[in-house]
């Protein structure tokens, strides 16, 4: 294998192109800062992107890695648009390894176009505080992400493969941050009248028309953030997730969020998860093992020794 950059054809797969382009890109030169006017031009999006790729393809060098470097190319399978699989009783199977399905940077990105979060002033104030304290995000310190936040790591639904929709439990196993699970009771029980607050709450689930898994959850603690931005919630949080699988390769989570402490009314956001490559499996992810977050940036752990 050679370390010398070599000319290659950019892939037809956009997600492969991303890695090829990034891997070959230059370390930014301060003299090449993009002026604001230029940034506006960037809004033209697709045309500029295509132009940039074309230009970059003409450039045969790079300083942050070479084309073909191990780990450089994102290998993602093509979209699977065939119908979703079904269990013997006709219920849609949610089996598969998925990534996505919840907010990461900003939960408002899942709102219908033109809508805004119905934030109460208390929420606005807390968001402003968290914007100045972004390293307080519990997620950064290996705490669970709660609901409905997602991570860049896969998760898997574990359904009853006998096909009984009345099976007592359904689990969602999460690989990443942190290696965790959600337990959803499918036997028709109700939420207990009083609950001790937890990161993932108390979840009860049911199927609608064998197509939609509805998960109703209460009993949350108020510690996790909905997103990196710090969109808050309280222990009054109530989430209703509606999971569907419109195609083999796509899972959609449409989640309604109620929390009278921070929102003037319930709101609904929608997020898509993508099926991972065949053969991929959940891997171990013990976040607390060697978390050195904070050191490089000079940040103290807000959850330790205070």
């Amino acid at each position: 294998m050679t370390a010398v950059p070599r000319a290659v054809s950019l892939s037809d797969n956009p997600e492969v192109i991303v890695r090829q382009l990034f891997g070959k890109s230059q370390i930014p030169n301060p003299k090449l800062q993009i002026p604001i006017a230029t940034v506006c031009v960037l809004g033209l999006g697709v045309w500029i992107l295509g132009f940039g790729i074309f230009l970059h393809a003409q450039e045969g060098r790079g300083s942050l890695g070479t084309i073909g470097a191990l780990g450089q190319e994102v290998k993602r399978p093509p979209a699977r648009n065939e119908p979703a699989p079904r269990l013997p009783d006709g219920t849609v199977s949610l089996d598969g390894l998925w990534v996505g399905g919840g907010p990461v940077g900003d939960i408002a990105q899942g709102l219908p176009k033109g809508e805004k979060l119905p934030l109460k002033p208390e929420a606005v104030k807390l968001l402003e505080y968290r914007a100045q304290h972004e390293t307080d995000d519990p997620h950064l310190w290996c705490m669970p992400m709660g609901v409905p936040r997602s991570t860049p790591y896969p998760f898997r639904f574990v359904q009853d493969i006998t096909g009984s929709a009345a099976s007592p439990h359904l689990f969602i196993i999460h690989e990443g941050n942190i290696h965790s699970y959600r337990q959803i009771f499918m036997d028709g029980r109700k939420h207990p009248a009083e609950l001790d607050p937890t990161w993932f709450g108390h979840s009860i689930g049911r199927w609608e028309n064998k197509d939609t898994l509805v998960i109703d959850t209460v009993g949350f603690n108020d510690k996790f953030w909905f997103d990196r931005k710090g969109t808050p919630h309280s222990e009054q949080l109530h989430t209703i997730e509606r999971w569907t699988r419109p195609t083999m390769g796509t899972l959609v989570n449409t989640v309604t969020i109620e929390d009278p402490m921070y929102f003037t009314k319930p709101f609904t956001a929608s997020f898509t998860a993508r099926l991972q490559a065949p053969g991929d499996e959940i891997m171990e992810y013990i976040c607390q093992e060697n978390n050195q977050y904070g050191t490089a940036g000079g940040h103290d752990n807000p959850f330790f020794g205070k």
Partner: protein
Amino acid sequence: MRTKHGVLFAIFGLVVGSGAAFAHHSFSTEYDGSKTFNIKGTVSKVEWTNPHARFYVDTTDESGKTVTWNMELASPSALARNGWTSRTLKVGDQVTVTGYAAKVAPYRGDARSVITADGRSLFGGASDDGRPEGGQPQ
């Protein structure tokens, strides 16, 4: 220059258009996207650990003093999905590492490109959104 602008346009468009890719940690709170490094040295330790794999490189600083750099990579699972194993980098490997330096702590880096003396080229894919060229392996 025009070509470089084209590249930057494309990168910006990809980052915005893709909704950003992500990992466990925020690049911008830890590393300085304008502070790059390029060092040569010897791998003295490899940590195949979460949330991020790391390797340590013994090298000499400008004054000739031996120093050890702590290099951050992506998570083991993200690296494994892209072809790495815990044996990809070994203690004793001679490497050239390019990446972004820590904002505060000395001799810490977000490793992007690792070239070994035997000619292997490795992409570290460390940290996550906000890094100048974006993108996180999964």
